[in-house]
């Protein structure tokens, strides 16, 4: 019989791969098992149509932690990040707002809508960056455990408290507000122009089933403000070759350090004997033993799927069932015959080399949410568009383009029931194209191919429960020591030798890599592997 692995990682998404790379780097024998034929999970590039490569799901790189890039030497293994040039907001009335990397240019653009806002904008950026600095130690370390009485844990909580106290009264107020306010209420305190507030507020709702006026969304705004490339705050980027290139670089790194990676190796279940994980059983009947098993899948698939409720304590199962997914977004990927022409800024330009938001007003965004609340996709959704082919010629044939549209809201639980999504898929795609046509009149003539991914598809195809791109909603009651189930927040699980390394663990979703890295670190530090 073959020598058992030190660790089997179930799921070759970016977090599973990061965890595997760290374990391998520490000299452990690691096997990664991926169900699909490509690595990356939702951070994947695929040639969906001949010649057109799409970042099928996740489409920009923002939160990937610089220390992970450094420690896993991802640049050496092919990761190349291209910063986004701008955030472009076209409006249906022909006006538009572009926020550039250059603060002076941005100021001029905003001043066209509000002089006061133009003045405040950079001050806001500074305040948020400072907040980001405060949040960084929280997202770069395992969640504090308020139930522990160990001196080390108490000290950690105390240090967080001290950190709080060292701030000025204004900073304390800002922090309190950020954790409890809605994105719109929070921005209202700074800005007057709806044209500025609308595109800024949307980062508060990405991947949640909340509206921009829902309390608590101001915090998520920060979550997305912490994006950094090479240590520079608020810079988003494309990976050359698509988001899959991130996963491929991590995989290369893992292989370099000695990990073995198998694709098209779906597992049937995680083998549990006497309350301990012993390995996995593949769908083809093959059994592979290991000293530890790490799951990069979301908590529902991991515990209620691969492990089974029988092997778990009742209250843990209860907690798993209560944990909310409620996917709220879809993806429409378009292969275009030529560069799209925005009526508000025709022609080619740097504004197309960034992210483009269809978010003309706060009421527009809120109405999009209302449609979803009552069980339908938004008739006029929020769309975040990127055209990576403008900066990365490898992803489309010459002269042609790929256009990636992140679309919210598309609720998993539509009123007909989630399994009826396939019948509504094309109507959803049409709503997206119709919306785009209000800004890009000739869009319909340009479309060569169209791929529509509903939350149902994200679940079926990518294994994301209820189509949630973050392995569970990023709402306040599901963060830190509540993620995914209170009492089980340190990557450990009630099954001994089974670990959770996906976005369903602290600090949560986004192509961040932190859950995978922190899981590996916790395992190694504790001598578990």
């Amino acid at each position: 019989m073959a020598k058992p692995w030190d660790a089997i990682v179930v799921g070759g998404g970016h977090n599973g791969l990061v965890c595997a790379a760290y374990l391998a780097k520490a000299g452990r024998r690691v096997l990664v098992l991926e169900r699909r034929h490509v690595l990356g999970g939702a951070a994947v590039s695929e040639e969906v149509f001949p010649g057109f490569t799409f970042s099928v799901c996740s489409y920009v790189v923002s939160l990937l932690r610089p220390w992970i890039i450094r420690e896993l030497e991802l640049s050496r293994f092919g990761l190349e990040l291209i910063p986004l040039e701008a955030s472009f907001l076209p409006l249906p009335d022909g006006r538009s707002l572009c926020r550039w990397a250059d603060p002076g240019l941005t100021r001029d653009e905003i001043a066209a809508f509000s002089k006061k806002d133009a003045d405040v904008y950079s001050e806001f950026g500074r305040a948020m960056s400072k907040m980001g600095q405060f949040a960084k130690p929280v997202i770069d370390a395992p969640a504090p455990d308020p139930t522990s009485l160990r001196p080390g844990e108490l000290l950690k909580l105390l240090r967080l408290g001290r950190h709080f106290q060292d701030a000025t009264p204004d900073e304390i107020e800002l922090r309190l507000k950020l954790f409890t306010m809605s994105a719109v209420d929070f921005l209202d305190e700074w800005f007057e122009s709806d044209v500025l507030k609308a595109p800024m507020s949307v980062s508060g709702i990405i991947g949640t089933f909340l509206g921009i006026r829902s309390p608590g969304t101001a915090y998520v705004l920060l979550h997305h403000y912490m994006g950094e490339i090479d240590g520079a705050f608020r810079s988003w980027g494309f990976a050359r070759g698509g988001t899959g290139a991130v996963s491929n670089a991590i995989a290369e790194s893992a292989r370099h350090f000695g990990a073995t990676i198998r694709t098209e190796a779906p597992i049937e279940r995680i083998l549990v004997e006497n309350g301990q994980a012993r390995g996995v059983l593949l769908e083809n009947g093959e059994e592979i033993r290991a000293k530890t098993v790490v799951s990069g899948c979301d908590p529902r698939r991991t515990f209620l799927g691969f492990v089974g409720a029988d092997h778990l304590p009742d209250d843990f199962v209860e907690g798993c069932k209560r944990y909310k997914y409620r996917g709220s977004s879809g993806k429409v990927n378009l292969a275009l015959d030529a560069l799209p022409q925005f009526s508000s800024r025709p022609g080619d330009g740097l504004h197309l080399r960034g992210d483009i938001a269809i978010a003309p007003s706060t009421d527009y965004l809120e109405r999009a949410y209302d449609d979803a609340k009552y069980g339908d996709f938004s008739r006029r959704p929020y769309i975040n568009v990127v055209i990576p082919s403008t900066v990365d010629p490898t992803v489309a044939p010459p002269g042609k383009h790929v256009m990636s549209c992140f679309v919210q809201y598309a609720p998993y639980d539509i009123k007909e029931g989630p399994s009826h999504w396939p019948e509504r898929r094309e109507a959803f795609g049409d709503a997206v194209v119709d919306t785009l046509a209000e800004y890009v009149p000739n869009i319909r003539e340009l479309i060569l191919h169209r791929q529509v991914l509903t939350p149902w598809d994200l679940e079926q195809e990518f294994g994301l429960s209820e189509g949630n791109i973050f392995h569970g909603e990023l709402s306040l009651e599901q963060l830190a020591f509540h993620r995914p189930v209170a009492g089980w927040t340190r990557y450990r699980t009630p099954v001994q030798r089974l670990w959770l390394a996906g976005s369903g663990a602290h600090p949560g979703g986004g192509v961040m890599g932190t859950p995978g890295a922190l899981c590996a670190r916790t395992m190694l530090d504790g001598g578990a592997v």
Partner: protein
Amino acid sequence: MTKRYDALVLGAGLEGLAAAATLAQAGRAVACIDALEQPGGVCARRTFHADHSVPGLLHELGATRRALCAGLDLASAGLAWNEKETALWVPPPVEDPEARGLRFARGEDGWHAALGSHAADTDGLARLFGFIERVRSLALEILDEPVPELFTPSKRELFALAQKAVRLRRLGDRDMLELLRVIPSPASDWLGEHIAHPGLRAVLAAPALAGSVHGPRAPGTAGLVLLRACTLEREPVGGGAALAGALADSARRAGVEFLLGQGVRELRVEAGSVRGALLAGGESLDARTVVSTLDPATTFVDLLPFPHSSDQLGRAARQWRTRGGIASLSLACSSEPAFRGTDDVSLVRAISASQLDELELAADALKYSDVPSAPWLDVVVASRIDPQAAPAGKATLSVHIHGVPFDVQGGWTDAARETLLESVWVGLEHLAPGLRSSVVGHELLLPSDLAANYGLRGGHLLGGELNLDQLWIQRPSAALARYRTPLAGLFLAGSSSHPGGNLFGGAGVLGARAVLSS
């Protein structure tokens, strides 16, 4: 000649009365000033039709901080509390005539609801209220004392904070973590975890959300449901007017002088300290201390002379949110109302929402400043709690129409008011068939009318929106939550201060204590 006092209390609403009485009892010479002709604010009796009056406009006074008000001896001022908690009636939904209505009340031995086919909810309800009972005493402890000092805590305060942390830990891991999970959750999620009956979910959420512009899907609304469940007890006999009357009586006996019928025009400030106030009629009053129970914007922007109202105070005032969402409709009826689905003629209160989405839809109308097409209604038969409200055999009803914005698109024209009233008649007919034909007189107060008549900014009845970001250490802002202001001698202690909202008497008494200890 300028009159001289130790303290001026601005506003003779419940908080103003409680603050004035507390200060006077401690031997201070106190004047309580209000623009209205009688004390009580929105709790004062309002006669709106011949022989018909409402004992104030509020529907729930059961969360009054009775422990904090104990020293005011309201009992000898004639105040009594009901022996039982007020039952809430939810009629069966229109589309399901077979269904039974829901009567919901808390008795000595727990919560009661006739659940019919939802018998499984009996366990859910027990689980829910078991948890509430276990966290209740900690919640009350936190609500009945000033918020902790965040900025420059003394050793003693740090110790008190540590004690609080220990109390939290003593709940046990399970309840502590559950408490931290529930507070920021949406009410619809938390209630959905325990309860299947749509009417029972609605009856638990609806009154708790009355001070918020949000619907039950909004994060933090579970915290409001929990807050209400922890604090609500029996109602005062005779309603708000009786409570206000007793507080005013207590204040008078302690020596408070009432200056009614004219408000304050401006606060007098010298060398960075408050020195008194100038009344609307031109009279000048001297005092080393001014306790304002008015909202922060009125206090800091309208009443403070320019150079003092700048910066921190002005910002706190501007950022304080007071979007009202309730219109008050008083009805004079020629006969007793009969709620649909029950023959209990002693029922005092009913709500029209038989599921959570009705609350959500009302909140949607607020977001877009629309006239709500189907507002939900909270009805109190005022004449059943206060015999003075209507002549024998007749009835007076107080209706809260939820989801009514301060401003609507196109303004509150007569046509818009009519549109609103029409949808209310439809809702009332559903709640109590035949009611409309018995109405002999009515008065509709939109949020803008409440603002104009009672000086309530935004028409908000509870001093400012109830949301997580406007409670506890953030009520009304982190820097002002301990009643003191940066201006020496000026204190803020209305319902826009902790504990605020409908936790009546809390801010007034705690604010007065802050004055006395400084």
